[in-house]
């Protein structure tokens, strides 16, 4: 069995499962946000449920349209707040405590290796970085999960990515995952697991892995998952204070395909509008002027991302006519960036620094694009209208590339500034 299949088998109380098998699995965590939870709460009330399965295994994070962008958004948060109060849901995170959900939950130690997690947000696949099975579902599944603590899955087959080598200077985990999505396409892993393993894993930090697992959904995958190693155990040791189990893929596990990914060969990569699979390296990019840069999101809003951006922006200025918006993903990241002097670097460079929010990534607020505008963003999607007007454009890139582009005012790689 693959790593994913072993976790699913254990949560279904079975010795073995096969790809395609339908199972009922116990859940370790059910997640929702301020956009998806209200739909689940409406269904919960309509169905007449009067209790939740476990007050500690449900979490709601108010991150999408917060701090409340308008009256309707405020109403949606209030509905979540009231529900969590009524049902005594412990892990409710509101403005002041909250961060972007997929940066926040690992930081809070709410996910451990071997867990089975569902979340009403497609980027719930992020927690595969910790060696958990974690997948996005919709609000109805969230509702049933909150009530019953279990859900049905079709056991996925898997694609294996054998990672070797080490990333060159100014190449990042974001470049690796954009390269992979470019290789297999936006439906290249449809219904399947993406399993990452190999000797090169030791050269990827936990934040690198969170960034890569986060975008498994952009290849259509059910989940992305990383083999557990010293890096994982070191990350969780002062965060997770409960028992967990580490699962490894069997040596004879079946994979539909195996890709060898050599980190040494990864170059700064940009995904062009309007699909994450439109990955290009700088020999294929040319001169593209930009209007905005966004550095943040559940993909690239963690402290290492802030450091990469600050390394480029230090002592430089954001180009005239470019707005650069930096959004630390959690309060902890924000505070740490402040203590390390990174916020000062951003502000001196002419960036706006925001409280944590998903905001512009999904075209919610805090940096919406006008008709015809172009943005370089460290976010995860560049679909039509994703960051604003249907005729605006989003180019996906790493924090290094985003920061370098902010300085030059066109899509640029860091070597253009440092050579």
């Amino acid at each position, binding site marked *: 069995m693959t790593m994913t299949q072993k976790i699913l088998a254990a949560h279904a109380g079975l010795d073995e499962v096969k790809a395609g098998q339908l199972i009922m699995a116990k859940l370790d965590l059910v997640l929702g946000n301020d*956009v*998806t939870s*209200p*739909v689940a709460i*409406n*269904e919960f009330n*309509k*169905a007449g449920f009067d209790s939740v399965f476990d007050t500690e295994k449900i979490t709601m994070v108010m991150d*999408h*349209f917060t701090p409340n*962008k*308008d009256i*309707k*958004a405020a109403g*949606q948060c209030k509905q979540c707040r009231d529900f969590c109060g009524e049902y005594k849901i412990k892990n409710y995170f509101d403005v002041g405590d909250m961060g972007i959900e997929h940066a926040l939950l690992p930081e809070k130690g709410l996910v451990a290796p071997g867990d089975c997690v569902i*979340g*009403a*947000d*497609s980027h*719930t696949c992020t927690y595969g970085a910790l060696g958990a099975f974690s997948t*996005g*579902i*919709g*609000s*109805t*599944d969230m*509702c*049933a999960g909150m009530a019953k603590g279990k859900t049905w899955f079709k056991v996925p087959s898997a694609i294996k990515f054998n990672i070797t080598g080490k990333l060159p200077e100014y190449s990042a985990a974001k470049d690796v995952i954009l390269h992979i999505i470019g290789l297999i396409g*936006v*439906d290249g892993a*449809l*219904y399947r697991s993406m399993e990452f393993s190999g000797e090169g894993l030791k050269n990827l930090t936990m934040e690198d892995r969170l960034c890569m697992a986060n975008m498994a*959904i952009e290849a*259509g995958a*059910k989940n992305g998952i990383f083999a557990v190693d010293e890096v994982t155990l070191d990350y969780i040791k002062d965060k997770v204070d409960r028992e967990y189990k580490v699962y490894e893929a069997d040596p004879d596990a079946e994979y539909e395909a195996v890709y060898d990914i050599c980190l040494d060969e990864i170059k700064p990569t940009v995904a062009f509008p309007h*699909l994450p699979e439109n990955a290009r390296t700088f020999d294929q990019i040319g001169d593209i002027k930009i209007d905005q840069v966004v550095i943040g999101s559940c993909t690239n809003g963690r402290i290492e991302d802030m450091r990469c951006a600050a390394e480029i922006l230090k002592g430089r200025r954001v180009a005239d006519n470019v707005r650069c918006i930096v959004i630390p993903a959690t309060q902890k990241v924000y505070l740490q960036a402040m203590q390390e002097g990174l916020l000062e670097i951003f502000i001196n460079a002419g960036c706006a620094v925001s409280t944590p929010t998903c905001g512009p990534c*999904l*075209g*919610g607020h805090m940096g919406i694009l006008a008709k015809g505008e172009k943005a370089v963003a460290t976010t995860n*999607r560049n*679909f*039509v*209208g*994703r960051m604003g007007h*249907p005729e605006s454009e989003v180019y996906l890139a790493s924090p290094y590339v985003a920061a370098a582009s902010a300085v030059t005012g066109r899509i640029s790689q860091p070597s253009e500034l440092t050579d």
Partner: protein
Amino acid sequence: MKAHGRVHKYGDNVDTDVIIPARYLNTTDHKELAAHCMEDIDTEFVNKVNEGDIMVAEANFGCGSSREHAPIAIKASGISCVIAKTFARIFYRNAINIGLPIIECPEAAEKINDGDEVEIDFESGVITNRTKNETYQGQAFPDFLINIINSNGLLNSLK
């Protein structure tokens, strides 16, 4: 159990951001969501869609966000079934869960044109194109899916 109507045809990778842009996700009201359905790729959709119409698309329909607002908007706009070559998995699950029938059928997705009159029999999975006098074999719905669709969604079916 059948669906019958005129076809609205789209291409590959119709994502949830164009089905219902995030700027409208500050509501859960089905009618409000339907009023903006497909707005960013087809501004005319809401004006031309009639109750019972059918949506047909190519590969990876519904990719992107997990927002259940996407199948809700499609269903509330009057669409009775979506046919595609393939669906993104979260969308597939969400559509069934809210009682919007969807069928994977590469042949139908390829041959059906915008404006064709199409009928779908969910028990047999047979899709009939009345405009072109063709039939295509889609995936038949197993009993538990028919039950969810007939009950107007997963939670109703559990009652």
